[in-house]
């Protein structure tokens, strides 16, 4: 996989290339060369830290969509054991953008459901760029019911630009499929843990996003509509996506402030794509802690907490005073 750089990483690219060159000629004999390598390495670290401590919401959006970013199946490989994929909605067809299966998380048996984007062109097309059809959401619901039956915790991974807007998707009830999941997840009698790993694109993301705890990667985004979609409707100009991302406040830090997200999972310096294993380790530890916490609650407690969690989301004003 060739590492791709984003615009704002430009100050680092040349320095990293130079470091690479120096490392290649370094045979351990030249002390000066050694010193230079150490110095350059430090310098790159400093610049990167500076860049990454002042990211704009649009830059974070670019990181969330980075072509090298770990996808759902990367986390499956790194975080879980004995993954066994299961397929199909038992009604129409298997929808590859949604992946479901049994897995073990640090000894705990769970059912994993998530959205998968493709890495290369063939895979991208097969996975429909991570955009699910109604049958994908219905497969997810079938597997959730299975989890409920056997009291297995559900872990969902969110990474989609949105639900697929196509003729067939509309014919087969895209809106009904999403709505049904929202209703059923609200009352599913088993723990649900949601992890937003990349793009949380509107209703297509939320259809796997109702849970007891919502974790979000540091450089993931989650929004009511894609910045491009918002820009095209409100400004009639997709080029205003950057402004739309700023306006809608789409980052993990924003969502934590609005109590939509419970916990932010820090990413390795430079973003999850620079170190898949380190990113996955952080996700694994956070997931294991959450699942253990949720396991200790009774079904009644779980459902009451889950209802209250979503019931309380929102900012409103009553005539008599402010805030609600």
């Amino acid at each position, binding site marked *: 996989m060739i590492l791709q750089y984003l615009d704002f990483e430009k100050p680092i690219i040349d320095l990293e290339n130079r470091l690479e060159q120096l490392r290649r000629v370094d045979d351990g004999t030249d002390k000066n060369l050694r010193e230079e390598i150490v110095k350059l390495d430090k310098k790159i670290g400093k610049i990167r830290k500076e860049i990454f401590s002042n990211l704009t919401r649009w830059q974070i959006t670019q990181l969330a969509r980075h072509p090298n970013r770990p996808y759902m199946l990367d986390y499956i490989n790194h975080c879980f054991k004995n993954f066994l994929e299961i397929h199909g909605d038992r009604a129409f067809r298997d929808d590859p953008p949604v992946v479901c299966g049994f897995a073990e998380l640090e000894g705990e048996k769970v059912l994993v459901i998530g959205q998968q984007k493709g890495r290369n062109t063939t895979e991208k097309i097969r996975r429909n760029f991570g955009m699910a059809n109604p049958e994908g959401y219905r497969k997810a619901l079938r597997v959730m019911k299975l989890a409920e039956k056997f009291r297995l915790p559900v872990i969902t991974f969110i990474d989609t630009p949105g639900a697929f807007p196509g003729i067939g998707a509309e014919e087969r009830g895209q809106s009904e499929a*999403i709505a*049904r999941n929202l209703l059923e997840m609200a009352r599913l009698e088993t723990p649900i843990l949601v992890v937003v790993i990349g793009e949380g694109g509107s209703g297509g993301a939320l259809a796997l996003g109702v849970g007891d705890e919502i974790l979000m990667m540091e450089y993931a985004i989650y929004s009511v509509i894609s910045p491009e979609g918002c820009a095209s409707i409100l400004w009639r100009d997709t080029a205003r996506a950057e402004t*739309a991302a700023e306006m809608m*406040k789409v980052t993990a830090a924003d969502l934590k402030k609005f109590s939509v997200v419970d916990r932010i999972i820090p990413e390795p310096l430079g973003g999850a794509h620079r170190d898949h294993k380190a990113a996955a380790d952080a996700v694994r530890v956070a997931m294991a802690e959450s699942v253990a916490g949720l396991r200790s609650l009774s079904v009644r407690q779980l459902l009451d907490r889950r209802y209250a969690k979503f019931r309380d989301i929102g900012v409103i004003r009553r005539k008599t005073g402010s805030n609600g």
Partner: protein
Amino acid sequence: MPIRLFRRKEEGEKKIKIPEGMWIKCDACLEIIYKPEVERNLNVCPKCNYHFRIPAMERIRAVTDEGTFREFGEELESVDMLSFTDTKKYTDRLKEAKKKTGRKEAVITGTAKINGMDVVLAVLDFEFLGGSMGCVVGEKVTAAAEAAKELSRPFLIYSASGGARMQEGVLSLMQMAKTSAALARLADARLPFISVLTDPTTGGVAASFAMLGDIIVSEPGALIGFAGPRVIEQTIKQKLPEGFQRAEFLLEHGMIDIIVERTRLKPTLTQLLRFMTASSGK
């Protein structure tokens, strides 16, 4: 002379005003139709049966027993928590919508009777920012569903909405989950929920409460779907088939129960409510 001039002008204005007020052009068949006749017909074109978009209060008047509607939740108002500005400030958009509709938000909630049967109602208003669902709409629909459960009454929602309100960001998205969760509790209490779809019902409203009715009723010709037609055309780069995403298309594809004309809505809802509340074998 000045007085005569003034008078003449007034007369001239009147001459233009009377025909404009009495005769309107149908949006669908483009026929010139007599306004009082259209109004008597609940704003349905007598020539082509086109159902005009109407304000929420008119819908409530058309379907509830006279004098039985009691509004609740009218004290709730939206907050510009993101300091959102696109081509206009969100606060200005809200002000304009309030002025235009005389309402504070895009949904009216309350209790009423339909042919003597007690119900809880939530009626969305497309005139108020396209019926979009922000935190207040989400809160009011949720509170109405909870009230229906508390009072053990059937719940009806009339939808007319472009979807979630972008100016409230992810908080508006979360209202989809919030309202659906309240409907799950209503369903667990075995109380009926009838969803009435009107033109248009799309986006986050279609993908939450609107498509969750025990029975889903639609007015003829209503646009209903998740993605808007323009977005779909841009994505798949194809022309959309005739009648795509209209109520008749959804009926054919098994997504809604009945298409009912506006003038037949009250008797149909009455019949449905009787069937679903008759033997409360709880």
